[in-house]
Each structure stands twice: as structure tokens, then as C-alpha cells.
């Protein structure tokens, strides 16, 4: 039996308010799953379980203020404590309050979920097609894709805990739930192709093959980081490995990727550049100018919009009145396609088509991938703007579970191999954390380095 203690979360005070419990006594939880919603002097966030097991006892009612260090719940093996407690009544009251503030949005979100469900019933690739793509990719690469997806998921889960434990500096925007997008697209690329990412770049970097050690060290701000500690979470990248340091201004990478493709075209190099961005970026001027010019010059680029339905907390339904982001391509006379961002094979197939199309000199594609963020927008976002139903629907389409079950069903892997793969990934992440934590810090005066090529920074 383990005591769950309230960690030090506030910046100026010890006091933390438990807004509501997200688990009940007797419920199974896994490490990293949310236990309750808490509010500090600065933020509202979800408190996650540091342990897996059964919730044996909840010591504190919802809407109660406790101090850091207070034992708020007990976790252990089922049956360790006999008595079971009734569900807090206040829990329901709090739910009610939240529903009132969200009523207007709830309807449109559920609608979004339904529409997307319908869409995939129409366009989903069938079992025969899946087998065909799997055969085309081959066993080893298919397993490699699963490994990359698990790497991304576990990397994000690990750093979230490190962050909550106060061991990691800065902020982070996580990629949990969207793994199939990055991995499917990057699988379709050649070594000399180049990708560009956003403020949410960890997944793209891992999928592109930037060594995890260098990514982790960058998050720690160390000299061994892929940007030598100058970039941080939002600027992960290494052009020598095929990824521009991520551009964290929404939409900012779109014209740059067009320009990279223009360079390939002017030099007649058979290379393709990829821009990853979200649904929110499609409302930026840079999207419009970037795509319009890409089609004018017919540059070898693919614009991959990962439509996770939310720009931070705002539903895309509130910020765009087109059914699909891909529909916007017709404004530029550009080829477009829509893929299932939770199905890595569907993503791969559509990305491969777009990349081949570009490489042959036929011009760019706007490829929309319908996906979902199974985590907050940034480090401490409890995603209260999403409905439970919506989250459940997308969780049931978890891209890793989908692909893992497919590989099991197709006999490409067995349970033991999957377990070993997960262990292998754990080992990679353990080593990366160790590398990140033990690498040397930069010197303060390294601040002056790396700005100009041909001169020192004037002081």
C-alpha cells in the first residue's frame, strides 16, 4: 500500500485545492493516469498517479484545500483495505458547474466526434488494403514504426512525470495521441528529405530519427542537446538529421518549408520538404501565403495538417466554417487528401502518395490528418474544454493500441515480442534521461555564442 501525497505544486504557497476527484475508490489506475483535478495559486491541472494499482481510499473530499505533503489517497492491491467508501456527493455538484460553463460547446464537440466517425466509416481503408500496405512496408519496418510510436508515447509520459516532479525546466507541448501522424509521414520519406515542426515537436523529432539522447538533453538545456541548449522543447530539431529546428510561431514554418522546396526545385534536387502544423495554423496568414506560393511554383512540398480539433482550448468548429481543413486547398488549386490520423498505415499510404507526387515534380499536397490530442495543450492543461464522451471516443482509437493489435492479429508480432519491444523502449528512455541529467550545463557566457557566422556579438 502506498500513500499518495500532494506534491509541491504552487510557486508561492503550500496550499493546493482538490477541485474534484477523477477516480473512485476501488478503481484501477495506471501510472500517469489522472487522479484528481487540483488548483494552485497559479494554475489548474490534473494530478497524475505516480503508481499503478487500485485506489484503496480517498482521504480528502473534493473542493478541499490541503497542504503539500498531505496524504490524499491510498493506492495498492485490490482488497488490501476491506471497507469501501461512498462516492462524494460534491463530485456531482462540481460536474454540474462545469457543464453549465461548457454547455454551448458540448453540442458542437459531440457533433464533431460524430461527423468524424461517419467520415471514417466512409473512407476507412479495409482489412485487405491494410494487409497490402503491411506487405509493402515489410515486417521489420512495420515493427520499427510501432517502436517509434511507443518511443514517442513513453518519452512524453516520462518527461511529464519528470516535469511534475520538478526535475525538468521550461514548458512543454505534448504529442500523446498523435503518434501515428508523425510516424506514418516520416516513414514515407527519404534520407535527404526535410521536415519542419511546431511548438509540439517531440513526436516529429523522434519519428524523424533525431537521437533521443540529444532531444532529452535539449529539454534539460544541456550542451549535448540537439540545439546545444539554445532551443529547448519548442525548437527541437537538427537539420543535419532532416529536421529544421522547430518553429514555435503557429503557421510560421509553412512558408519556410515552401522555400526549402523552392531551393530543391531551383537546384533540381529530388528532395521533398514537409511542413507539420495544426488546425489552428490554417487560420494564419502564413498558411495562406505559403500554400498559394507553393502551388504557383509547384514546389515539392507536402503540407501536413494534423487536425486535432483544438487550437489550445478553442474548438476548430468555432474558428473555421469549412468541414475539413483540406477543403481550403481548393482556394489554391492544390491537391488535397484526408487521412485517419489514428491509423498509421492510412497516414503512411496517403503521405507516400503525396511525397511521390511532389518528388515527381507534380507539386504540393495539403494532407489533413484527423487526429486528437490525448493530453493537455501544454504541461498543466487539464483539458476541461473537452467532453468526456469525446475523449473516450478518441481514446478508443488510440493509434498505438490500434497498430499493436493489428500486428498481433496479423501474426507479425506475438505478445512476448510486444513486451520485449516495450522493455527495449523503456531502456532507450532510461538512457536518454540519464544522458540528459548528467550532461554538462552550458556556461552562462555561452549565451553570446552561435548567433552570427562571421562576427562576434557586439557587447
Amino acid at each position, binding site marked *: 500500500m502506498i500513500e499518495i501525497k500532494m506534491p509541491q505544486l504552487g510557486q508561492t504557497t503550500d496550499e493546493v485545492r482538490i477541485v474534484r476527484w477523477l477516480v473512485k475508490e476501488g478503481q484501477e489506475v495506471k501510472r500517469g493516469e489522472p487522479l484528481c483535478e487540483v488548483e494552485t495559486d497559479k494554475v489548474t491541472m490534473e494530478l497524475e498517479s505516480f503508481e499503478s494499482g487500485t485506489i484503496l481510499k480517498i482521504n480528502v473530499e473534493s473542493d478541499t484545500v490541503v497542504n503539500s505533503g498531505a496524504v490524499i489517497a491510498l493506492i495498492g492491491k485490490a482488497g488490501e483495505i476491506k471497507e469501501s467508501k461512498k462516492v462524494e456527493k460534491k463530485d456531482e455538484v462540481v460536474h454540474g458547474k462545469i457543464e453549465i460553463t461548457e454547455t454551448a460547446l458540448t453540442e458542437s464537440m459531440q457533433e464533431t466526434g460524430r461527423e468524424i466517425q461517419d467520415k471514417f466509416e466512409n473512407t476507412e481503408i479495409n482489412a485487405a488494403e491494410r494487409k497490402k500496405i503491411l506487405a509493402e512496408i515489410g515486417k521489420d519496418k512495420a515493427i520499427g514504426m510501432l517502436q517509434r510510436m511507443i518511443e514517442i508515447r513513453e518519452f512524453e509520459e516520462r518527461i511529464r512525470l519528470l516535469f511534475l516532479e520538478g526535475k525538468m525546466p521550461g514548458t512543454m507541448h505534448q504529442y500523446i495521441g498523435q503518434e501515428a501522424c508523425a510516424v506514418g509521414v516520416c516513414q514515407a520519406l527519404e534520407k535527404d528529405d526535410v521536415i519542419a515542426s511546431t511548438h509540439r515537436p517531440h513526436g516529429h523529432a523522434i519519428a524523424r530519427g533525431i537521437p533521443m539522447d540529444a532531444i532529452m538533453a535539449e529539454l534539460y538545456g544541456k550542451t549535448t542537446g540537439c540545439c546545444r541548449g539554445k532551443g529547448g522543447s519548442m*525548437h527541437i530539431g537538427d537539420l543535419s538529421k532532416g529536421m529544421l529546428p522547430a518553429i514555435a510561431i503557429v503557421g510560421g514554418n509553412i512558408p519556410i518549408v515552401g522555400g526549402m522546396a523552392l531551393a530543391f526545385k531551383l537546384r533540381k534536387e529530388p528532395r521533398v520538404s514537409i511542413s507539420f502544423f495544426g488546425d489552428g495554423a490554417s487560420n494564419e496568414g502564413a498558411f495562406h501565403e505559403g500554400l498559394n506560393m507553393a502551388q*504557383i511554383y509547384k514546389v515539392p512540398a507536402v503540407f501536413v495538417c494534423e487536425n486535432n480539433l483544438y487550437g489550445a482550448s478553442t474548438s476548430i468548429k468555432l474558428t473555421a466554417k469549412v468541414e475539413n481543413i483540406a477543403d481550403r486547398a481548393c482556394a489554391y488549386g492544390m491537391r488535397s487528401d484526408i487521412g485517419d490520423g489514428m491509423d498509421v498505415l492510412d497516414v503512411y499510404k496517403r503521405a507516400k502518395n503525396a511525397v511521390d507526387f511532389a518528388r515527381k515534380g507534380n507539386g504540393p499536397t495539403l494532407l489533413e490528418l484527423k487526429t486528437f490530442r490525448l493530453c493537455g495543450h501544454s504541461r498543466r492543461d487539464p483539458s476541461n474544454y473537452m467532453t468526456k464522451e469525446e475523449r473516450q471516443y478518441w481514446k478508443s482509437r488510440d493509434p498505438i493500441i490500434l497498430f499493436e493489435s493489428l500486428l498481433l492479429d496479423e501474426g507479425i508480432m506475438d505478445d512476448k515480442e510486444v513486451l520485449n519491444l516495450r522493455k527495449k523502449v523503456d531502456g532507450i528512455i532510461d538512457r536518454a534521461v540519464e544522458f540528459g541529467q548528467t550532461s554538462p550545463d552550458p556556461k552562462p557566457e555561452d549565451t553570446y555564442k552561435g548567433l552570427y557566422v562571421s562576427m562576434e556579438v*557586439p557587447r
Partner: protein
Amino acid sequence: MRLSIAEALRKAIHDEMARDPNVFCIGEDIGIPGGFGGAFTVTLGLEKDFRDRMIDTPISEIGIFGYACGAAVMGMRPIADVQYGDFLFCAMDQVANEIAKLRYMSGGKLKVPIVMRAPVGVTGRGSQHAQNLEPYFISCPGLKVVAPATAYDAVGLLKAAVRDDDPVLMFEHKLLYGSKGPRQETGSVDASSEIPDEDYIVPIGKGIIRREGKDATIVASLLMMHFSLQAAEILAKEGIDCEVIDPRTLWPLDIDLILGSVKKTGRAVIVEESPKQGGLGAEIGMQIAENIPDYLLAPITRVAAPNTPAPFSPVMEKFYIPQPERIASVIKKLVNL
């Protein structure tokens, strides 16, 4: 061969495109046969020799600078042209967040060798096509900022900028271009030079003494440099001997040249066509004050535009731009303190 700045830049760009196949031009109306050759004729006719490397764009400044940035990162050497410097604000994210910072954010691994050309100057167009933007960009680490006042320097700085591995923003003055035909500007000042046949550059970060003198140092660039020379002539008739320094590069500043001159004269006057608040004078003056306070015989002084946008009415516009007479009268008071 005597060339205006517009002709000189055209020659320099032609030379660079002929020398290096990675150099290309990107901008609005720059290479349309029968068109303008950019807003002030600088790229006129270049499409005849370099059709594939004159990239005419839609009216999309984010696109121009974003595409230039992406191409530069991949090893090209774009010369990005904005019709009026004022439009840089449309592309500010690409210039200030992407182009200026990408190398730094990469930990010094990337290069972003872009030349950005932007016409400036208060010239009968009201507030949105006629302003001097230098102050905004000298406070943007990662960029280099140059401002040629003569055709000789325009060639040398353009070539240096194209060959430089860092992003360089070049401000050009509408009244100094010497553009001909329908693009001719009222109130133009002759900035033409003899351009030697042989290849040369003007090093970025090196200023020049345009006129030697012992009583006061005037620091001024672009049109203000020419007006300062005129002011120095007015003062010379009254026995006041001014030294005029043209920094040519606004960032990094050739501060040693300026300090050396002020040590000699004991008086520093910075003349600028942009608003006084937070301008070039504030920066240059402060560097003088920090470094050589003991040499000053009079307060460091700025002659600048009012802290307003540029007005349209010719009466107000003339008041807005520091005129040679105004510069002279300020210096006269300073010397007679």
C-alpha cells in the same frame, strides 16, 4: 563608369547572380517583362539573363521572407525585395522570429544567408509608404543592417551582403536611388559614384569619414548623410569645421570610428530621419556617453524627426525631415555653448 544607386545595385545583383548560381531574387514585380523592375527599377531587365532566378511573387510579404528563409537554410542565397520598407511589418514574424533567430535557436548549426532590401525615406506618400525603419531592426539581434548612401557603397555592401553567411537587411533611400523614367522621385539627391570595373566589396561593419573636421562630429546615414554634408558647408562659411561620419553599417556599428572622431572634436550630433524616441541617436549617443564621457565638451545631441508618423502635407513633411539648415543651427548653438 558613373552610376546611380539604382543602376549600381542592378549591376551588383547581376554580377552576383552571374558569379554564384545559388543567388536568386524574390519579390513583387521584380522580373516581369515590361514591368517596373521592383518599385524603384533596381532589378529592371535582370529577367533577360536570369529568367529562372527572378522569382516574382504574389503580394505576400510573409511568403517572400518565409520562402527566402527556407531557401537560404537549404544553401541558396536569396535577395528578397520588399517594395517599400514599410511592408516589412507584414513579414515581421519571418524577419524577426525566424530569419534572425533560426541560427541561434539551432545552437549555431544553421546558416541563414539572406539579403533583404528595403527602400525607406519620407517622400510625399504620407505615413505608410514613407518612413525610416532602422530603429526597429537595429534592436533585432541576429540581423546585420546596412545603409549605403552612395552608389559605390551600394555595390560594395550588396556584394558583401550576398557573400555573408548571416542575414543582412539593406536599407536604401528612395531619394538617393536616382531612378529614372516614371519611377523618378521628386526631391532626389545625387548619390551616383564612379564604379570601378574590378570586383570589390565594402566590408560590413566599417564606417567612413565623409568630411574631416575638428569642431563637431556629425553621424548620419542615407539621405541624412547628404544633408549633414550640406549643413557642414553652411557651417564652414561661419568658421565651424564639422566632421561627417557615415556609419554605412548600422548594426554592427563601427563604434571605434565614431569614438575616435568624437575624442578629437569633443562634440557629437546624430542626425536621423526617424522619430527621436528610441532611435539610432539614442543608441549611438549612449555608446559615446558610456565609453568616452570625459572627452565631451557639449551634450551629445540628436537632430531627428518628431515623435509622430510621417505627415503628408509638403509643409509638414519639410518640417518633419531634418533639413540642412536645421542641422546647422543645432550644431552652431552647440559649438557656441
